[in-house]
């Protein structure tokens, strides 16, 4: 238990350090790289807590999609090293104060025994029939998703569709008075009727 917790603390500390690097590093590319690093470390933390599906989702969604997208955007934009970083630390005391306030509040209001006793969940005997018949993690997720919560799935799908449509709406510009070439229309025209000799 102690070993597990110490590893947990170590990785979490690394993640915090990476998070600090995100805001303190000079180059935006470095920032995004440390962001990815912190995401990876977070998924380690989740793995340590035996929440494997969430750890995988973390890797896939955050590292695989979002952070890489960020990286691309940042690299494409070719942002110069920002000058405004010089006065980054002037907000530090305020931020620290707010953070400590938050932790203080949480510590005050949270129940003391919020940590989960893992041993509680370990069954003391194995139900063999259940173990044979039970689904794996992904299977049960799929079962839940497609049988019990298909509406959430459809809603989430609609949300993604919306994201695409919204992005297209914001970036694609269709003018009203644009003259487009319509080849078929041009070919269909009868030049005898169209052309006139002007004296």
């Amino acid at each position: 238990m102690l070993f597990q917790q110490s590893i947990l603390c170590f990785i979490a500390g690394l993640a915090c350090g990476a998070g600090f690097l995100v805001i303190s590093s000079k180059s935006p590319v470095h920032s995004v790289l440390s962001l990815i690093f912190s995401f990876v470390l977070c998924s380690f933390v989740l793995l340590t807590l035996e929440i494997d599906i969430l750890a995988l989702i973390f890797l896939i969604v955050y590292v695989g999609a979002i952070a890489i997208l960020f990286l691309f955007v940042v690299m494409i934009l070719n942002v110069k090293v920002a000058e405004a970083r010089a006065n980054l630390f002037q907000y530090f005391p305020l931020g620290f104060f707010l953070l400590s306030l938050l932790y203080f509040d949480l510590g005050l209001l949270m129940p003391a025994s919020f940590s989960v006793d893992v041993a509680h969940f370990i069954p003391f005997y194995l139900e063999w029939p259940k173990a044979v018949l039970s689904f794996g993690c992904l299977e049960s997720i799929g079962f839940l998703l497609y049988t019990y919560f298909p509406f959430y799935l459809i809603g989430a799908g609609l949300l993604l569709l919306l994201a695409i449509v919204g992005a297209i709406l914001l970036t694609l510009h269709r003018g009203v008075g644009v003259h487009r070439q319509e080849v078929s229309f041009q070919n269909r025209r009868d030049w005898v009727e169209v052309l006139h000799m002007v004296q």
Partner: protein
Amino acid sequence: MFPFSVHSRFSYFSFFSNDLVSLLPEIFLVCCICLFLVHGVVFSKTGRILSTNVANLSILALVFVCILLCCSPGGNYLAAYSCFFEDDFIRIIKVFLLLTCIFCVTLSLFYIQLEKSNTFEYSVLLLISLFGIIAVLGANDFLSLYLGLELQALSFYTLAANVRVSEFATEAGLKYFVIGAVASGFYLFGASLLYGFTGCVRFSDFSLLLSHIAPAEVEGIFLAFFIFFSSFLFKVGAVPFHAWVPDVYEGTSLNVTAIFALLPKLALFGVITRLLFCYFFSLFDVWQFPFVLCAVFSFVWGSLAALGQGRIKRLLAYGGISHSGYLLFGVCSGTVYGAQGVVIYLLSYILSGVTIFCSLVGLRFSRVRYIADFAGLSLFSPGVAFAIAASLLSAAGIPPVVGFFGKLSIFLSALAGSLYVGALFGVLCSVISTFYYLRILRTIFFENGSRPLGAFFSFFGSYFSKELSFLVGFCAVLLFWIPINPRILFFISFYSSIGLIG
């Protein structure tokens, strides 16, 4: 064989057949959305401008959804493995949502034609956001509520930033996005804490749990509850979380402002009322005082800050903040009168809102931005002047107009719930708000102004389309007709509040 055999009531057949019947309007709406999208994509390739076409189609679709909703089986039921809930209260609010959305599409149609914009996605986005709002109204657990909220919010961010050339619109979109993200964060944090402390996801489980256990025994539930609800306060723009409202209203184009002002308020107050009255009523002692404070500060701040505004949209925004305050105040009374009052107030708010925004959109060509620009309107366009006057009087709650009944029922519920001091503040603030609404009326009726609208009117003639003028006239007449025969208003509100409680 079946790992989830505990849920023995489950069977595939009844599950889907009931769902298809009960969720038919929503299913139809989603199908329409997809169809319109495909339609738009296919036919816009040939270079046609489809914005008007798709807007007209979506009006048609909304009418059909409305009909489907009115023909739904009725009664209370849970649908889709109790993800969605429906009762008379929700159904009535949904009908009004659909009607409001039809109004919004109509006025956007006019705006689209006026601005010659070529974006058929606009109507599709509006329909998606409407679907989100409907999902919010009917949601029965944290996840469906969150999905609905996000659908609504994401399409609203896009709509806000729709006018790409305008810096204001971009700024408004960004602000709305950031605030919306914060609100979503609060929502998720609060919801996960609530789940963590109680283990419940369904709202109906909360009412069961809290009716059996004293709330104080559930550790940390108050913190979680307030974090959860502060996201709603963000969204409706109640006072500690109101700062985004004026900027977003001002930056977005008029049709989008109308949508922002009208649609979410209807749905959010519907869901707030339902959550607080049906599921978290055991925490009444805890939430009443903070929410009353929020409400009182909202209407005080909304009325006071609107006094100094010169721009009509900012003024309407601050007016909207104070309206949120009054609505919240009605909810806080915790009585059946309160639910009834919220419904009446919402209806009057929608009516006056539609009137004023349609009039503003119609006056769009004359670039009416400041209150002073209204000068002399009554001479050149008495009908519009009358409609604006009616809607502003209604918003101020002056008696013969329908808004009075909203204020009346709100204050009645407050007094029935013994919120005497708050009611006193509310009444005083309604006098203050009358002051700035009267200022607009003064400009419209009593002044001729240095920048005469007359030049515009004599040159261009009236710029109202047929649909728009019908809409303005219809709503303005309703504003006066309902008080003459308030039977229908009271009946609807009574029916819906009974549906909520029973």
